[in-house]
């Protein structure tokens, strides 16, 4: 019932929730990350996500497998998009279902935290002034955005 994917087209969050919903699960938790218009105080116009795709797919699936074991979730779907994303576009979506709410919520949190630590995906921010920069969360002055 669980799967993960690196995708290049728009992520359809409603479809993912529909895929997961079932009368056997009482709780469905989801998280989506979207492209923000501001980063570290600079105005962003777009973000280019690139990945080491083969490893990103493996690592994402490892996270899903770990999460399934750890939280006993009934179903878990994770999609991460790569390519040039516009403001407001969904970059990542996580949907987790469980009979009870706590494991569903905790699973979702676990997956996004692990993605940010381990999945080889990078983003280059395009700024209003024409500049472009690779985002390095290890150097960021502020908390890394979602």
């Amino acid at each position, binding site marked *: 019932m669980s799967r993960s994917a690196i995708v290049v087209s728009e992520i359809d969050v409603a479809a993912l929730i529909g895929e997961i919903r079932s009368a056997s699960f009482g709780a469905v938790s989801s998280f989506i990350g979207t492209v923000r218009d501001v980063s570290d105080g600079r105005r962003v116009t777009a973000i280019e996500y690139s990945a080491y795709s083969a490893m990103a797919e*493996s690592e994402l699936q490892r996270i899903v497998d770990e999460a399934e074991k750890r939280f006993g979730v009934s179903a878990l779907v994770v999609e991460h998009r790569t390519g040039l994303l516009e403001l407001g576009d969904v970059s990542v979506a996580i949907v987790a279902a469980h009979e009870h709410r706590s494991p569903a919520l905790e699973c979702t949190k676990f997956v996004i935290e692990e993605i940010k630590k381990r999945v080889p995906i990078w983003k280059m921010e395009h700024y209003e002034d024409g500049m472009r920069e690779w985002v390095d969360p290890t150097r960021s002055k502020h908390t890394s955005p979602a």
Partner: protein
Amino acid sequence: MSTVTVQLFASYAELLGASSIELSLAPGSTVSELVRKIRLLPGASLLPTTPRVAVNRAFASSDQRIDPSDEVALIPPVAGG
């Protein structure tokens, strides 16, 4: 000596001006020996002292040995999500 291809991504590919490099490694070389060799390349001085390395699509420890058939990559700080 055998030849190993190392894939580069994002900021590291820009630093070294290539999306992959070929290195000669003595048999039984470890990840940290690989990194030491890479850091001698032009542009590579800006790499962190111990960049993350993936072997066969999984993060590798510094003492892991590298086989010529392995898929090897340098992994810049990830920024997914």
